[in-house]
């Protein structure tokens, strides 16, 4: 299968997933009893007043036509509706927040990648020694630490006790440090574990023994045979983790009052501002699909077996 054909097929699959996801999200939020008008008009409003608001917002119509109208606005005009709370366009709200989330996620991913691969590499190289044990314990602890507990601890030490870094907010490079650290620790632990196990598996392969046996220089064996093969799964993991940080950093963003997509979503859930929830979920799905596509393409560039196999 050619590269272009593969690209096309994956993109079509991603688009289909997006349509399905938007339908599911719309149905979960809109097609059930009780709706946003209860919050908008307050408890004291009469049924007639509620009905008037419902009619004005078009909520009295059946859900399927409303879904099609929503998708038409989204696909043709790039319009996601307006916030039920402050009546601002949803696209404007999420676009503003997305940049902040992206910066946070990319910094955390890069940090986690560097630290995680280093840890995993050294654990594998010194397998069955004290260093491996130490690093494995560190990985297990990193995986089991609640990110919010870590965030509180970091805030206490670095902003309250030492006063080096701001505890909440955004705006300067110093605001980045604590949220990025909190996000990077569990991510680095996942990456390190996979790097370790993948490397250990590759080191046992016969082609590595063969390469050493036929006298290929050590660093070439490592570059061409060991690293190239063992890092392929790590790269797809990094892609997935990056996606999770973009779409799922809402706990850390809430703790550090980081003006990102996650905090916007959480706030919107509290306010029952469904248009904003829907908009940010759809944006997260788009990000996921695009990332999947990119990871898949990198994958096929690195591994010829995937390129030739039927997808």
């Amino acid at each position, binding site marked *: 299968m050619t590269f272009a054909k593969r690209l096309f097929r994956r993109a079509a699959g991603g688009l289909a997933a997006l349509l399905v996801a938007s339908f599911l999200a719309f149905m979960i939020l809109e097609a059930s009893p009780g709706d946003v008008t209860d919050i908008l008009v307050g408890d004291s409003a009469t049924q007639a007043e509620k009905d008037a608001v419902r009619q004005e917002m078009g909520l009295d119509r059946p859900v399927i036509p409303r879904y099609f109208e929503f998708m038409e606005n989204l696909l043709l005009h790039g319009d996601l509706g307006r916030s039920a709370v402050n009546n601002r366009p949803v696209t404007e709200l999420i676009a503003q927040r997305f940049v902040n989330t992206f910066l946070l996620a990319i910094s955390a991913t890069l940090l986690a990648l560097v630290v995680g691969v280093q840890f995993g590499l050294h654990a594998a190289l010194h397998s069955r020694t004290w260093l491996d044990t130490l690093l494995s314990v560190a990985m297990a602890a990193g995986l089991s630490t609640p990110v919010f507990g870590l965030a*509180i601890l970091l805030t206490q030490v670095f902003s309250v006790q030492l006063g080096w870094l701001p505890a909440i907010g955004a705006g300067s490079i110093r605001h980045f440090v604590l949220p990025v650290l909190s996000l990077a620790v569990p991510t680095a632990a996942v990456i390190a574990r996979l790097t370790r196990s993948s490397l250990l598996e590759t080191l046992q392969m016969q082609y590595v023994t063969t390469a050493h046996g036929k006298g290929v220089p050590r660093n070439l064996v490592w570059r061409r045979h060991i690293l190239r093969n063992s890092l392929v799964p790590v790269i797809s993991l990094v892609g997935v983790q990056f996606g999770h940080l973009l*779409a799922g950093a809402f706990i850390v963003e809430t703790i550090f009052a980081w003006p990102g997509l996650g905090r916007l979503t959480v706030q919107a859930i509290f306010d029952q501002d469904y248009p904003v929830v829907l908009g940010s979920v759809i944006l997260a799905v788009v990000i996921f699909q695009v990332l999947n596509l990119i990871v898949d393409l990198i994958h096929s560039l690195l591994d010829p077996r995937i390129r030739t196999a039927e997808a």
Partner: protein
Amino acid sequence: MAQELDSRPLVDLLPRVRKWADAQSFTQRLNKKQPFNLVAGAGLVTLMLLIATFAPLLTRFEPDTIFRGAQLTAPGGQFWFGADALGRDLFSRVAFGTRYALGMSIGAMLVSAIPGILLGVVSGYRGGWVDNLISRFIEVWLSLPGLLLALLLIARLGPSLTTTALALGLSGIPGFFRVVRAETRSLAKTPFIEAAESIGARKRRIIVCHLLPNLSSTIIVLCSLRIGTYLLAGSGLSFIGLGAQPPLPEWGTLLSAGKDYFQQAWWLGFFPGLAILCTVLGFNLLGDGLRDKFCRQSVE
């Protein structure tokens, strides 16, 4: 040389001897030193299960009793983990919190495990259009990845501990499905399944009597790791207010209440955090240990 060849089948001809030998090696295996992560994990998990079961016997006070004048008491003889801002015994709240934490994460695990395993076995064994149909269905599920589906459900149903467990469990179904389906497919090619088919065993019998028992180690490992994941996610959601609601002594809620008093009363955040860390670590270590011991290939 001839003697050596003769002595081998002799053991095979004596099934009783073999059985006895196997029983011997089984006890020997139990007595042998177990890997560290398995022992530590099983120990931590057992400890937490015991605390959850015997919480009323372990604590001196009710988790909701307010002691006037005891606000923010430091840990000591009276209040082992100190008292919170309202004067409630923190040890009692953390101990009873074990029930909510384990209930939520084990409940979520069951919600994803039961449909995930059933669909996975059927899909992997039947193949053909059944497999196609179920796999497409799961792909629809996966179009809302990670916690997005859980968030949507929480947004719609309103935050509570039950909603969190349900939402996390539902969004985890594809994870179980994919692992079980892949394992089933490789098992279905093995000779003993073929043998069962050739003597005319029904498909349902093969699934129940042959496939599921052989999948059990994979499933147990997956369940253990998942409980840890769900506990982290669930207490995180509770922490930001999208899970259990106060005054329920869930660990995430406790930690969230404690963060405002961190300077005067470090124990309010420390003990619930430690409880989460130990429990998650326990399930993770147990899962890893069991995987190293029993599984042919890696799960997740």
